[in-house]
């Protein structure tokens, strides 16, 4: 920064470095101040305390017969509870992991010790549509699980992505079996 006039020759060079330093320091402080002031506003967009505190969902699964599925709501999202047939379980368990875009064994996805119960969040991992396949009238896609009509993602009987643009398997929410016929999600 060239400064003209007003400086004593001796102090010229020194004065300029000092001035540069002051500019930088003031500018740096200003930037930190702006960032600090922006933070509360940005954070105000994150889920509020009451949203976070949304209760967990309890579901009575006694009435879901083999081959049937129900959809429940948890944190505003659909959760698929499916009572799988022996065939579906076998299909899921027999699929070699190297055929999966997001490899996960079925045993890590179905309920521990109760492979007939598969509980997954019913939100397509592509862009968030609700896949079809819960109702008997809906298509289950080419792998017998779910099919997302939005951009064509196929999920298998373990809720794992098999084909289509979705990158991940359907999410498995935290599930606790309260009794043999009742579960808590969340």
């Amino acid at each position, binding site marked *: 920064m060239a400064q003209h006039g007003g400086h004593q020759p001796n102090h010229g060079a020194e004065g300029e470095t000092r001035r540069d330093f002051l500019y930088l320091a003031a500018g740096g402080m200003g930037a930190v101040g702006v960032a600090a002031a922006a933070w509360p506003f940005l954070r105000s*967009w*994150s889920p509020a305390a009451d949203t976070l505190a*949304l209760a967990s969902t309890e579901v009575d699964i006694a009435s879901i017969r083999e081959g049937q599925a129900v959809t429940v709501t948890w944190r505003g999202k659909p959760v698929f509870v499916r009572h799988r047939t022996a065939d579906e379980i076998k299909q899921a368990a027999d699929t070699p992991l190297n055929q999966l875009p997001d490899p996960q064994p079925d045993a890590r996805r179905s309920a521990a010790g109760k492979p007939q119960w598969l509980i997954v969040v019913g939100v397509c991992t*592509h862009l968030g549509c609700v896949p079809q396949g819960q109702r008997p009238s809906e298509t289950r896609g080419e792998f017998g699980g779910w099919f997302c009509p939005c951009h064509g993602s196929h999920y298998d009987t373990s809720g794992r992505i098999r084909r289509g643009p979705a990158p991940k398997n359907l999410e498995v929410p935290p599930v606790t079996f309260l009794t043999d016929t009742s579960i808590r999600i969340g």
Partner: protein
Amino acid sequence: MAHGTPPTQLTNPLMRWVEHRMPVFAFMDQHLNKYPTPRNLNYFWNFGSLAGIILVIMIVTGIFLAMNYTAHTDYAFNSVERIMREVNYGWLIRYIHMNGASMFFIVVYIHIFRGLYYGSYKSPRELLWILGVVIFVLMMATAFMGYVLPWGQMSFWGATVITNLFSAIPVIGPEIVVWMWGGFSVDNPTLNRFFALHFLLPFVIVGVVILHLVALHTHGSNNPLGIDKKGPQDAIPFHPYYTVKDMFGFAVFFVFFAAFVFFAPNYLGHPDNYIPANPLVTPAHIVPEWYFLPFYAILRAVPDKLGGVALMFGAIAVLAVAPWLDTSKVRSAAFRPVYKILFWVFAVCCVVLGWVGAMPAEGIYLTIARIASAYYFIHFLVILPILGKVERTLPLPTSISAAVLKQGSGMVAGAPAEKP
């Protein structure tokens, strides 16, 4: 803005008083009256002022809608139905606003293609062009958030899909989406903030439009020949020539606009948006509003989530850098025989993208979408840089007046400041 003209001769004492303290009259005289404008502008140069008038219409109708709208998931849908059925002329105000969004995009797309055809983005108008792309992006954000407000099925699922695009960002993506939602799905907090932003963004657009005009008036309009003005004989004053022409354009355009508002108000919309939002059921075919379809087609053409999102945003970003991708020194396609053809190929490519964007993403449609998406980028990234170097352009006229008056000399009608 500093300009060398002496203050206008004002006789009214109040105007003189104001002028002395703030030279608004000199400013208006400079920019709306005398403003020297190429004498050869065709009707494609009407679309800028058309976009401006729609922005005003959107703000006026929007403010009156906001007076009756309730931004809450439990009431939003019903409040819009109430506007339609109970509020006096509510149906009219809403239909103008709803179709106005489509008109805005029609006009702006023509405006953009005008720029591409006549090379208006080239030096010294690069910044003007970039500000235009910024306006386009803001418009898309505004229209997207506006579409969420009536809280129908398409509102909800459009919002879900579009906000989920950001989950493709590596590592922090999913957290960003939760942050944007203010929850774990699109819900009341999302609707509230979208309403606030939908109210705000049009005014931000007004600000960027002002910058767009400052940049425009620095070097003036380009013209169908794409050559610079060489002297006063190439220009005519803005008023009355272009004020009248713009007014005429408004009149014709309003007929077109009114035809939709009164005779086909829902033609451009999707019937599913008259079904209240249901977070548990996705409609079998979700399609965005027509003006997003080309970009939606690019998104779906890529089998990879991050790749699709990146290319979709890239399709807009590549517009902004067009001034540097196009290496041709000649602006107007009138003198670029090869570019002229490839421009139309590109235009058709965009229409094809829009069409496949509305079709299911499978089979032949997917193949077409992939070819068209690839061509979209090839046009910008391969054709524009190479063509500018190899194309044999036609000889440029010596001046605008020489070309349009056949002979640049002699009687020049409407020479500056000479009003009929």
